[in-house]
């Protein structure tokens, strides 16, 4: 019965591997950190953005829309900030161009949709995605700077102090 013993030994190894603690964790359970200059999904932080539109001018696809209004003190109020992720080719030129690093490379990988028009992100959507990102990453921006921890409003807007 040499055959039977061999099979039993093999199965024992299989069963051992089946019940032991896993040693490797992969995507849904664990996310690999991405290098800071990778070209992948974008996050936009409303509190860093001055509304200068440099990103929109740098974008080869023209998929960023910035609409601003001057405030009393001369700064800009960013009324609309929209990115069309249907068109975006994730080249990162906007992130490279932004003088305030308000748009950065990072973000989550779960942005899959059933309707392509859901990929058009407006300001509240981008803000809530940025808040989700910061919440999941210990309130550190993708470029390594610390962010001010803030209460997240359900509508995606930050609470102003």
């Amino acid at each position, binding site marked *: 019965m040499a055959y039977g013993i061999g099979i039993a030994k093999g199965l024992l190894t299989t069963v051992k591997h089946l019940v032991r603690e896993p040693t490797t964790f992969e995507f849904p359970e664990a996310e690999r950190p991405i290098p800071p200059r990778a070209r*992948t*999904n974008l996050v936009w932080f409303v509190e860093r953005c001055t509304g200068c539109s440099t990103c929109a001018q740098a974008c080869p696809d023209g998929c960023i829309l910035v609409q601003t209004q001057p405030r009393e003190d001369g700064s800009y109020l960013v009324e609309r900030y929209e990115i069309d*992720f249907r*068109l975006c080719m994730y080249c990162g030129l906007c992130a490279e161009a932004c003088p305030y690093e308000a748009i950065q490379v990072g973000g989550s*990988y*779960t942005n*899959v*949709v059933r309707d*392509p028009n859901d*990929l058009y992100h407006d300001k509240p959507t981008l803000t809530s995605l940025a808040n989700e990102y910061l919440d999941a990453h210990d309130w550190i921006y993708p470029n390594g700077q610390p962010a001010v921890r803030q209460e997240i409003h359900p509508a995606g807007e930050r609470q102003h102090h």
Partner: protein
Amino acid sequence: MADRETIPVLNVEPPPTAEETGTDIESDLRQQLLITQVDSVLTWARRSSLWPAMFGLACCAIEMIATANARYDIARFGAEVFRASPRQADLMIVAGTVTWKMAPAVRRIYLQMAEPKWVISMGSCSNIGGPFAHGYSTLPGVNNVVPVDVYVPGCPPRPESLLSGLMLLQDVMKEEGVLGKRRRPEPDGDFSTMLPEGDPIRRELEALFPPYLSVSGEPRDTETGALPHDTNYLTMHGGSAPGGPA
């Protein structure tokens, strides 16, 4: 993202008797309960063994291949068996730029796949044309030729994104069930706003939509279902056999 669901188990408890419930359960209701159970087992089997058709169109395909290797390991989701023949595939991952020249081939591969079949559009190019959306040579979205279940944005999407797309598709399959209505919109096969009249690619694409006329517009043989002898077609494809609907 939805949680990974557990494997459904058949409920082995017998249905409550008339004495237990105080009412008599109609026999068709019992049948419906059985169908629901069978449905959940079948959808579990289907979504756990999604075999993709093996083809890639552009740079996104490289990332699709990376998803299959050990670091990302699409085999964990039962979708590692990339089939070289569309007849054996359940899932079409459109990974890359769909040029007009390639569009009839993509449509034909989709038609050759056996039902039930699902489509993931991977990357900005196949979502809407991506960087080439305003170009003359690129189809503005693969949803113009095949119905798409899930869109994965990115250029290219990282393997993690494709895995998210696969997980979303599995959730969609769970939600739709075996006999449920498919929510994805079917393409209408109208290319009049994109290609000029008489364009050979437009004629070829329109021949691949219902009622599946030949490229010259003649109907199929009513008895055999065969396409008429079509010199146009044979000239375009070097005499190869047309791949009609599955």
